[in-house]
């Protein structure tokens, strides 16, 4: 074997090692490089823009018939908030629970479950799509968020609606929260649901109140809502990304 052959072999071996290494480790390395992941995330903005061009503001999510209802509606994430205040409210059938609606609004309000039930309602059979990949079909009844907003009168600076929830997500007590923009907030199918499948909303599915945002994935549809806050920006809330899962790297726009 000549020196030439040896160096050629070494070159080929190195090439293979580098190629294999780049493929396996490289992609994992890239996943932890902020610059690279931000480039990947650019596609998400592109998706959001394209989706908003394709689907008009008030495009409706598909609604189904009773025959399509899932025999049981799967609960995901928290199924019973580990919080003494919430547990006390639950023991009394949420009679003392009040929905605080505040932030950048003219008339902040505290609404009881009975008051919400007395407001105009909407019933819809829709498909719930989890980011994990599964879907379930349920029948929801609730008050359109637009009705609640009409009562508190958001100021013109308001860009987002933030849902503050009762469920602690970790040992440090970080609570679930989510946010949607005003287009979704005023969408006819965006309701604050207090009923599932003709019965009171079960604790596993978010009692006493959860939001339905039918054109997005399940993680946008916050459960155990305690407070709705109208804001101009959510940068100062939680990790600043607009939601519990968003702070963990999931996209704020969950229409895909």
């Amino acid at each position, binding site marked *: 074997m000549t020196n030439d052959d040896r160096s050629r072999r070494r070159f080929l071996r190195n090439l293979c090692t580098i190629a294999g290494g780049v493929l*396996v480790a490289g*992609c*994992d390395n890239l*996943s932890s490089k902020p610059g690279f*992941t931000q*480039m*990947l*995330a*650019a*596609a*998400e903005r*592109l*998706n959001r823009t394209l*989706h908003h061009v*394709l*689907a008009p503001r008030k*495009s*409706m*999510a*598909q*609604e*189904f018939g009773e025959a*399509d209802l*899932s*025999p*049981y*509606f*799967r609960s995901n994430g928290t199924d019973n908030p580990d919080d003494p205040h919430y547990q006390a409210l639950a023991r009394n059938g949420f009679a003392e629970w009040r929905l605080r609606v505040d932030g950048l609004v003219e008339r902040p309000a505290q609404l009881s479950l009975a008051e919400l039930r007395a407001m105009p309602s909407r019933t819809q059979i829709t*498909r719930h*799509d*989890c*980011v*994990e*990949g*599964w*879907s*379930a*079909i349920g029948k929801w009844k609730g008050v359109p968020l637009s009705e609640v907003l009409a009562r508190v009168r958001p100021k013109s600076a308001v860009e987002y609606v933030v849902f503050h929830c009762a469920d602690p997500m970790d040992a440090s007590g970080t609570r679930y929260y989510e946010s949607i923009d005003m287009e979704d907030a005023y969408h006819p199918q965006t309701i604050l649901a207090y009923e599932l499948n003709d019965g009171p909303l079960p604790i596993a599915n978010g009692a006493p109140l959860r939001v339905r945002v*039918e*054109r*997005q*994935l399940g993680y946008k549809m916050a459960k155990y809502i305690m407070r709705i806050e109208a804001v101009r920006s959510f940068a100062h809330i939680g990790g600043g990304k607009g939601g519990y*899962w968003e702070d*963990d*790297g*999931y*996209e704020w726009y969950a*229409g*895909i």
Partner: protein
Amino acid sequence: MDEYLYQRHTLVVRVTHWINVIALTVLLMSGLQIFNAHPSLYWGKSSYTESGPILVIDGGFPSWATLPSGQWLAMGRRWHFFFAWILVLNATAYLSHAIASRHVARDLAVGKTEWRTIGRSFAEHLRFHRPRGDAARQYNVLQKLSYLLVIFGVLPLIVVTGLAMSPWINSVVSGWVDVFGGRQSARTLHFVAACLLLLFVVIHVFEVIVTGFWNNLRSMITGRFRVERQQRP
């Protein structure tokens, strides 16, 4: 033996081919990462019906097959949706070129008389018989059909079933996903299409190896392909 080199693949075909290799690899691996978040497949509109899943892969796919390798759904989605754009833009560039330059009509379209050679072509494949001389300059009928099936069948199917999983895209024309039998059926078809693409790649690479690996590889890098000159009697 007398041989000569000729320009087999255009620059656009070569560049889009290798971009496609990268995009499909990332899409497959990040797709398996997304699948692993709920490693079951269903038929119908939802996952929770009277009938159970049609396929369950316990524990999901191994970490060496997924991107990122550990369980990380959010990052898998980022990779997947970015490279989905690369795939679609690349495919658009390829198709525009392939149609405008008559690559499809000249090299991929199956001629009327060619259909009759399917049986013989099949037998030749089974015997690893490779065409020589001028015959090697053309794609054989099975090769043409598999390219056409992937370009105009499987790839469009995987893109549309991917879009069918987006709840926002669902609302563009309410109920259009029922064309596939519902969102969960679309998810299953997306998976099936990915399997078909993988099957295509396995056969494609196998054929590349057995019909002259270096010659094929060079032709897809520099464009030049070596053919034996036909012996005239």
